[in-house]
């Protein structure tokens, strides 16, 4: 599916990340995701293709995008209108926009180029920090993701990966080999709800998690909580069960649904599917943590 010479589709590379694994880290967000979570706050990471954000308040009506677009996707009538269905993803418009109103989401980068970026902060990694792959779903780019992890290990970097766990089992062995820590999302333990709200079944996710664990992969389980949706006791107990079955899991990190992706949906021109009532208060999170502790689960809150 992918040719290495084309590199990887990278959404962005963010330095100085303090909550994406141990120490100070550089997080590489890779594009493409097999899930379509209703609460996703990085909708621009879902597609493998490059896309662009449009922020009307920044547009200065210079009409450069209109001129450079080969597909007539930009039109200036009363205001700047965008016909996304005509867009071929060439990104000429975003590249030429002088005002930052059109912003490209996703570039192709070679592995050496990505690692060059990650190497920039080596002085800050010390013994604990390093590279975190996030997304999207990092494994969505398959062999290339594994090559990236392998190269990172050859550079002597600590590697962590935020994953939804939904990937082909053939990757498991190499992922374990080149990933020092998996930050493993369990979005819901209820099968029906998982399918309804993420678009896929959670069976593969849980099976992969156990397989990774069997091969010695270190994990930290990450659980999003959505008020009224998955805050029930049964879900918490299920997670605790999974945690206790795993041999190499260092704990469960919990956090609340956050509404802040909404503006990105608008900028992408797609309807928002989140729900503000899903937010879980800090006090409620603390309660959930207590329930986990009572079940003998190492649990922390990520704010």
């Amino acid at each position, binding site marked *: 599916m992918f040719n290495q010479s084309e590199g990887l589709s990278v959404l962005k590379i*963010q*330095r*100085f*990340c*303090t*909550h994406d694994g*141990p*120490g*100070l880290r550089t997080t590489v967000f890779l594009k493409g995701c097999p899930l379509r979570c209703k609460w996703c706050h990085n909708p621009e990471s879902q597609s493998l293709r490059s896309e662009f954000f449009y922020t009307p308040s920044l547009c*200065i009506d*210079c009409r*450069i995008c209109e001129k450079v677009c080969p597909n007539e996707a930009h039109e200036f009538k009363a205001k700047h209108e965008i016909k996304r269905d005509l867009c071929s993803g060439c990104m000429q418009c975003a590249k030429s926009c*002088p*005002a*930052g109103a059109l912003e490209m989401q996703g570039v192709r980068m070679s592995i050496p180029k990505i690692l060059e970026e990650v190497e*920039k*902060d080596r*002085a*800050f*990694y*010390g013994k*604990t*920090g390093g590279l975190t792959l996030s997304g999207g779903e990092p494994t969505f780019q398959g062999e290339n993701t594994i090559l990236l992890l392998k190269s990172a290990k050859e550079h002597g970097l600590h590697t962590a990966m935020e994953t939804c766990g939904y990937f082909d089992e053939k990757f498991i062995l190499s992922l374990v080999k080149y990933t020092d820590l998996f930050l493993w999302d369990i979005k819901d333990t209820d099968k029906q709800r998982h399918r309804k709200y993420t678009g896929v079944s959670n069976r593969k996710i849980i099976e992969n998690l156990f397989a990774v664990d069997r091969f010695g992969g270190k994990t930290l389980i990450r659980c999003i909580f959505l008020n009224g949706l998955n805050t029930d006791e049964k879900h918490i107990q299920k997670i605790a069960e999974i945690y206790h079955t795993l041999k190499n899991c260092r704990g469960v990190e919990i956090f609340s649904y956050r509404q802040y992706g909404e503006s990105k949906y608008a900028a992408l021109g797609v309807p928002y599917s989140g729900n503000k009532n899903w937010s879980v208060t800090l006090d409620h999170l603390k309660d959930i943590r207590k329930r986990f502790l009572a079940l003998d689960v190492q649990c*922390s809150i*990520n*704010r």
Partner: protein
Amino acid sequence: MEFFTSSDSKRPIRLSAKIRRWAYESMHGKYGDEAMKTPYIEIEEENFNKLDDLDKYDIMITEIAKKAPIRVCEEELISGSATLGAAISHVIPAYHKGEKIFSSVSHLTIDYETALRFGMNFYEQKVADRLEDKGLSKRQIRFLKSLSNVISAMRIYHRRYLEKVKNIKPDIYRNLQQVPFQPARNFYEAVQCVWFIFSFVRLCGNWPGIGRLDVMLGDYLKRDLENGTLTIDRAREILASFFIKGTEWILKDTPPSSGDAQHYQNIVLAGTDKQGKEVANEVTYLVLDIVEELGISDFPITVRLHENTPERLLRKISKVMRHGGGVVAVYNETLILKALTAYGYPAEDAQNFANDGCWEVQVPGKTFFIYVPFDSLALLQKKTLDGYRKNDFSSFESLYGAYVSDLEDQVKEIYASVSQSFGGPQIDAPCSEWKTATPCSVVSLFERGCIEKARSYYEGGPEYNVFSPHIGGVADTVNSLYAIKKLVFDEKKITFAEFMDVLRENWQDNDILRSYANSLHYYGTDNEEVDKIYVSLLHDFFLACRKWDKRGNCFFPAGVSTFGREIAWAQNRLAAAEGTLGGEVLASNTSPSPGTDTEGVTAIIKSYCKADLSEMVTGAALDLKISPQALSGEGGITALKALLRGFVKLGGYFLQIDTVSAQTLRNAQQNPKQYKTLSVRVSGWNARFITLTREWQDMIIGRTEQNV
């Protein structure tokens, strides 16, 4: 009784309720208003105006010692107080007919060590011995007698305290019978000694820094703890008195300014000794305990870091930093020691470096120091580019060359001006030919070299005489040069002459070009191309200063600063090629320009460290604001530690991190009463946010907050 914190972790409680309440009340203005009731002492001497300067000065100091109000707080464990309100205004608080007479001295750290080890009596003897010299000139004899007068005045003041505390504070009475006139014998006496000297010097209007408090006090505490004569908790309460007394100038309602009435004086902690061993001791941790608990920012603390800084210390600093307030900043000792020895300081003096009360590095108790700031951006805009009327640069190299030549002229001008102010008409040696200057015997007494040479602090007395040109506006000058390079010479988006027109017209009707200029990756984004210009600029500035260095025993080392001048400078600035309009408040110190630091704090530190900062001998500060959220939890501590280690490894000089969200600051603007104890790092000093003028507040808010 809450002390403001930016962190979601609570401040620890270690001090007694009584001490905490005292701190809280002091920080809410209980004593500050009182100081303002007696701003100064009125000199009633007839014929005062006919006296010569030193006679006037001696009378003033004696009168202050005799008449300044004595204050002993109910809770205090050490005594001495700067009770005259006018001292806040940088004057000696003794007036004649309601008029101020002399201004006071700042930007120095005096020698406390001699008084600690040998007592003030030693000074008395030393001055008397020096007066035996038959070769002294009349002027030198007069100066030495003025030093004797300072000691006599201190004795008067000291006796008044003894009387006051005799029946109410037996511990303090016992200590004051010993110190500061005789050597301190234990920790409690040592703290009292340093405080008494500091508060007396401060009472007389001066602003002395404290220096390496842990080095000064560490051995005393160690001995007392080993003897069992003192517990660590008691030691913490004693030392807390020192800090709480430093807040006695906080008013209930402070008129807005560049910060409220604080003692402001810097303390330097940790670092290595001559053998390269870490000096951090129990005093280091007690100081950090106290500011972690109370959030007192009145003595800005700077910790000396190096590659082997113990983990325990780094963790402690990170925990204190997280609470915000800019209470703790850091030096990269490794680089600074290299800078000072390469510059020519003897290793032993270099090793003992502290600062001047802000962050400019100096050898404490031996240094006369002034810095002379200038705006490098205005120089580019108005001189090199002649208010954008210049149109004949055909390459970036010719533009840069012309700028460096203007920079050299600017530095020469600074040299000529300090030379004329302090020395004779000859430009070569300001400190060999010394002019009679404003009297300053109080601080001169505590500066090594003054007694020996029988010359005052302002007259070439101290061992080192430092005049440091400080370049300001660095980031914006670099960015402007880079923008011109990119737009005109590399990408040829516009001709040089056209671009000058655009800038002269303040970017009018050029939104597209301006947006493009704004979108470039500037200083602070770890962009090699722009950082190369930054590296050259600082190096060329260093070379320009070196031409005038060490003439007639005068040091003329380079440094970088703005110290908030970016506000005053704004009105003198035109539109900049990086896309800013005329009159905008731009970068502070060696920090990136507001809004251009898009790649995060690590990128900022990387850019900043690319220059050989050891050439900026007196300092080059980096100010960062990090959102509390980025530093929450254990991850936050780890990240902060990593940031500090990286800063040292990459060769930074001085780093101050403020942990506060822009939202909190905006809330404080709206509801000042609820944010009385919220401090921020302004530059070399901290200030309670609500006491800043709107302009200063906006500048602080404008510094990009680095989030995740």
